[in-house]
């Protein structure tokens, strides 16, 4: 009755392999790597926006974004040219909410996506500045019964496709709660919060949330403890909180190299997001299959 060498996974996630990171279905289908990164970013952003509109907690939204990334991973994963990112985003969010304790009806989810995908939605506008922004036009995102039924069928079908592609691994462990525990362990999160400790915690969580948008797919390459340590390291430097001068990350089983890589990865997110903003000022990032086809065609 010796236990088999199987592991309990509530503190870790399945990670992507090198092969899966070096090639993808989308690239095999002729999506250039830079466009693929943009699509991943747009998908994560769309999911985040929809989650906020559905008033879902960040925990569920973050899990949905990770599942979205898992889906498009590797040559056996999904392809942006076959499964539109808007559908995968919606189905990821719908499914993640369904297995959580805040399930959303298909109608709520589809209404929100209809709004976000409408030509005048904030997501379709330049990301910054109010100049030239149109007011959302209610008619453009009204979901008729017919389109609702069609969208619902797509949603449920996409859900199945996602489950298959991710091998039913719906478990996503997030680094957020790990990070808070580590902050307490480091003694920088006193029971009665100070201004500084609150800022540190907030900045740590902000880094973790930003990492969901990283083109390096940090959530698929590193375990939660490593992400947590890197976020704490970076946040402490920014907020100027003194951490132990020893190599404290070793205590959390994170080595210096991993930490260094992740700190750079997290730190580069801001620049990456800025460049995405600039990249998509003229047109919005292609969210539907048709838009993507056009974009790919235009690039030749």
């Amino acid at each position: 009755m010796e236990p088999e060498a199987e592991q309990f996974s509530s503190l870790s996630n399945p990670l992507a392999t090198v092969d899966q990171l070096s090639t993808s279905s989308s690239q095999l289908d002729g999506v250039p790597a830079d466009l693929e990164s943009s699509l991943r970013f747009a998908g994560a952003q769309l999911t985040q926006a929809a989650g906020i509109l559905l008033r879902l907690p960040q925990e569920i939204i973050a899990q949905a974004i990770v599942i979205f990334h898992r889906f498009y991973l590797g040559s056996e994963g999904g392809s942006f040219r076959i499964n539109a990112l808007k559908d995968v985003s919606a189905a990821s969010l719908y499914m993640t909410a369904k297995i959580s304790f805040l399930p959303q009806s298909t109608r709520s989810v589809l209404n929100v996506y209809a709004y976000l995908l409408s030509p005048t939605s904030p997501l379709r506008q330049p990301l910054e500045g109010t100049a030239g922004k149109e007011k959302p036009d209610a008619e453009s995102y009204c979901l008729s019964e017919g389109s609702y039924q069609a969208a619902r069928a797509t949603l449920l079908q996409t859900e199945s496709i996602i489950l298959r592609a991710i091998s039913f691994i719906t478990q996503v462990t997030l680094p957020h709660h790990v990070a808070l525990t580590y902050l307490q362990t480091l003694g920088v999160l006193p029971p009665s919060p100070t201004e500084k400790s609150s800022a540190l915690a907030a900045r740590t969580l902000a880094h973790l949330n930003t990492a969901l948008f990283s083109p390096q797919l940090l959530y698929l390459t590193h375990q939660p403890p490593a992400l947590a340590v890197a976020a704490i390291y970076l946040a402490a430097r920014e907020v100027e909180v003194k951490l132990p001068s020893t190599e404290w990350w070793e205590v959390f089983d994170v080595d210096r190299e991993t930490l260094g890589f992740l700190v750079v990865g997290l730190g580069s997110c801001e620049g990456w997001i800025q460049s995405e903003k600039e990249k998509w000022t003229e047109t919005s990032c292609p969210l539907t299959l048709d838009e993507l086809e056009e974009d790919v065609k235009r690039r030749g």
Partner: protein
Amino acid sequence: MASTPSRFGGQTLNGNPAASKRTAGQASLEVGPDGKKPRFHGCSKISNYIMMSKLGEGTFGEVHKAESRVTGQIVAMKKILMHNEKDGFPITAIREIKLLKMLSHPNILKLEEMAIERTKGEGRKKAIMYMVTPYMDHDLSGLLENPSVHFTEPQIKCYMIQLLEGVAYLHASKILHRDMKAANLLINNHGILQIADFGLARPYDDPPPQGGKGGGEATRDYTTLVVTRWYRPPELLLTLRKYTSAIDMWGVGCVFGEMFKGRPILQGSTDLNQIHLIFDLMGSPNEENMPGWSTLLGCEGVKSFPQRKSTLSQTFREQGPSFVSLLGELLKLDWRKRVNAIDALEHPYFKSSPLPAKPGEIPQFQESHELDRKKFREQKANLPPAPAGGTVGMGPDGDFINGASNSNHHGQYRPRGGLGGYLNDQQPYPPRHNGYEFRQHGPQREFRGPPPPPGPPPSQSRRPAWPPEANGLPPRPPPPINPVWGGQVHRGSVPRDEIRGRPPPREGGVAGGPRVDTYIPSYANRDDGHRDRDDGRRGREDGQRRDERGDRGRQGERREQEHRDPGRRRSRSPERDRNRELYRR
């Protein structure tokens, strides 16, 4: 493959001992267990398996025995049917898969992987998905019904230890099973017992039980619409929402008694009847043996019960004081003091003579599945007709049912050689269940028992193995009504109360906030036609159980009864029906 993605890091949950035991062969976090295999990719294809035989079928889907082309392992494959599902992929299936992928213990049924059958013209047609688990020869319920199988005390102790180990692991991993019963315990011919069916399981948000401290206290509300009635603890029947892992321990106690008696020990026909049976056995509740019971909502509004003394030691007098002591601990009315799995394993019962058998010493029993049964039918035809008025449906020893209370059962251990013959003998009474598809059967599974003997008119000669009234399995609880997710009523409610005559759950739950546990949306648009069909089916399934005892002559009569009384015959897990509804559409 799925073996691959499920091998994650070496961390254990909460550093609990049960989980940490198994971290010996720690896999690196960055590479797969074999150093190169990807640990994260899609499901395997159905072509990786050679289908061998059908084990059963039902609304839930077919279950096949199959052999893996990759590993040669014999597996059971449960099909998840994707009908025109209103809410997409069945949520219970996703949750069960999610939990099973996180668990790893020799006494928990392992989900090997998911296999996909790609249908032609992909796109329109949905793929068929299978859950692949190791093949187990029996389930405990089926094995107990098998007249040719006699459990010895060392064998029962062996099963109990494994059951408790599994439950201890689940609870230490902060998971409530919530559907503990004999039918969900699978047993193979190596004497290994595994807990299956996590369709009702959920994470437990309160501290796991600690040695010497019973089940502890819960701080949040959970739904009470869980656990098959015969295995449902008194606090659930009295509508305690802040229940603990102790609810699973009650089920373990019921199974423990069942292994000796050969049948479920508390077969209530309604919830109210169930609680009466419990108080008959364990004594009526008072502030001493069940503190706080009177503050609970009561069972179907009933809050007072006649004074009774415990009849436990009387009922199980032949099993000895040590047995009664352990059973009494497991069936304690006070859920706070009810023994937890850690402590139960330390009970003197397991250290007294006769000592527990080792799994390898337990005799093998002949497996039996739906389609195998045809074979048995032919064999049976050559047997002499059953004696009139005799104990037809029992084994050659005739003491299958009564054997449990037979003192010669005590400590009786058949050495392996003595039973070897079972495998070659033409066994007329094979075990009935294979432990995979039990609840999901449709009417096709009706004829599971041995065929009727040719010969004398069966109506009188065939008796149920125990009084017929005890045979009516109870209806399942209603599907969750007005599920509350985070305080909002998610979907329409269905007035199904008439089925159980139970007051509808309070909308919004007791807490009315996000702490209320729910598990499943209800399904508003079911029409009555569906329900009738469902009930008829349920009735027949239930009849199946009776058939298994050779009670074929009563079939016509039974059918009629079902017609009149469709809802009262099946011990069904709370959610199953809902699934059935889902899967049918």
